[in-house]
């Protein structure tokens, strides 16, 4: 039982990170029907930006730790959001009328570019977040070890996800996003500026990825320019698992994927873990072809 509970805590932590990244995939997909393969690399850039801010700018300024972390996260998030908007302008907008597949290839090109740019800027070696930055506190509750970073990751992710859900459901901007997701042309006729909506999407998605990147760096301390690719694949799997285009679906998919991975590795075999994860994904899709919660985007038959 203790072992099971530990695995659940670990699974929720990993899943929360997947969910944050999956949200970026799902929002872009919901509005643009684009699988943004560069999204994982936004997340990676967030990790690196947070690292640079911490190491170069804030190391010497004796501010309290929570403020330092807040500033670093804010700058990383802002940086990645700007990058997201820029990438959308340059690499996706010119292709909006020319087919989904063209934009997919463009996204692959962006991904390749960002990875190699990060390698050239920060070096090809692994970088480590400074040990003073990450809170080390951990508790042992009845044999289950829970660390402060784990609670932070789970808490912050849940807050962001709920906040995003309310934003999309309750605000005018959120309504515009939903309307655009259903049909660009109708949305336009109703006076919605589709370009601004897409820009907004490319602020929110990458920003969430950026936050996830900093949290990942603080939790595991180790970052590398290829991290976007592996986490991106998992997060995309999570988005599909929950039902792509569906915001609660990304959350459910992410958390579920994290837990599945941990239980698979914990009880059966770590070497076969990913086979089990993808096997479950395929089985699920056979019986529920649009994911657990289904697709929210309106269907045109």
């Amino acid at each position: 039982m203790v072992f099971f509970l530990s695995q659940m805590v670990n699974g929720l932590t990993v899943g929360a990170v997947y969910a944050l990244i999956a949200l970026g995939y799902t929002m872009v997909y919901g509005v643009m029907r684009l699988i943004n393969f560069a999204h994982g690399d936004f997340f990676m850039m967030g990790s690196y930006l947070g690292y640079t801010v911490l190491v170069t700018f804030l190391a010497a300024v004796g501010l309290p730790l929570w403020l330092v972390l807040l500033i670093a996260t804010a700058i990383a998030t802002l940086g990645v959001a700007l990058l997201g908007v820029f990438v959308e302008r340059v690499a996706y907008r010119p292709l909006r009328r020319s087919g989904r597949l063209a934009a997919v290839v463009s996204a692959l090109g962006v991904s390749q570019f960002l990875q190699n740019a990060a390698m050239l800027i920060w070096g090809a070696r692994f970088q480590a977040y400074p040990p003073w930055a990450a809170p080390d506190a951990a508790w042992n509750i009845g044999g289950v070890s829970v660390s402060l970073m784990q609670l932070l990751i789970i808490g912050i992710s849940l807050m962001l996800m709920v906040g995003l859900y309310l934003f999309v459901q309750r605000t005018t901007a959120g309504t515009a996003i939903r309307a655009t997701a259903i049909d660009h042309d109708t949305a336009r006729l109703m006076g919605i500026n589709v370009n601004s909506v897409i820009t907004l999407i490319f602020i929110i998605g990458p920003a969430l990825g950026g936050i996830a990147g900093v949290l990942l760096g603080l939790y595991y301390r180790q970052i590398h320019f290829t991290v976007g690719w592996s986490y991106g694949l998992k997060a995309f799997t999570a988005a599909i698992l929950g039902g792509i285009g569906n915001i609660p679906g990304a959350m459910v998919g992410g958390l579920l994927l994290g837990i599945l991975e941990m239980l698979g590795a914990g009880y059966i075999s770590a070497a076969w873990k990913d086979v089990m994860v993808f096997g479950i994904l395929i089985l699920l899709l056979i019986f529920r072809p649009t994911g657990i919660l289904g697709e929210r985007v309106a269907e045109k038959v």
Partner: protein
Amino acid sequence: MKTERSRMSRMSVSANSAFLMVLAAFLIVFPFFVSDYWIDVCVFWGINVLLGLSLNIIVGEVGLFNMGHTAFYAVGAYTAAILSQRFGINMWVLMLLSGVAAAIAGNVLTAPIMHLRGDYLLMVTVGLNEIIRITLINNPFGLTGGPNGLIVLDQFRVFGRVIQSPIDFYVLVWGCVALLLFALFRLQRSRIGRAWNYVREDAVAAESTGINTRWAKSLAFMIGAGIAGATGTIYATKMMVISPDSFTFAASVSLFAIVILGGTGSIPGVILASGAMMVLPELMRDFAQYRMLFFGLAMVLMMIFRPQGLWPSTRWSTRVKGGDAE
């Protein structure tokens, strides 16, 4: 409208044949002027053309998003390696066997998921690719050699000549490309080819005209996977060593990119795009660590300036285009 369309397709036929003639002339003359290294680059180009064409049947002709094509390629390569190691079967027979093995895998693995729509199918094929790769690494029953992979000692023989040097492989690979092109052009004009295109354009309408869409899709997967599997045999004898590292998700992604970069459904497009994906990074070797950066940039630029692909297919209608919604 009808005459317009047929004139278009006549034009494209003549443009296609002009392209193929130029390509053939180039391929015949090229080896006389370059080093073995560039011939080898062209061998891998040819292998990528075979793979790209086989994927093009699935993605281009039928419109099924398959981003795990190297899984079938891996099945073929490993079938050839395992059988040649254990039983020393003639390579040409093996090529056929591994094609059949991959075709069966293509049928069995995709049968339950054929009803999935676009992006879900894409994710599932990615999952299949990962499942196969990880299985190869985990060395089930000691068959696949784990991460080390397998050594392939046998080679193709043509009239007693062992296919070994770069120029031998060059002739073999491009000979196979020529055969495949001939078959594909026949296939496009056949009933099956037309059925595929109906399914792609409008599955519901196709069903109502009496086409069994499920069968049409399965057939595309089987043929595409089979060709990829047979190509795997060539790859195995060319590399002499195969390991799971060659059959990654990234390799599938770049195959997918080849089909779209070329112009979905376009045969000359696949040839051009796989050439570009192969030759560009080679030409950029002088940039050392900057070269993959420029390569990524080149991919974006190519799509922006030629969003329909390098050589758009006239047989691929505008219905699937239009970015806003399906």
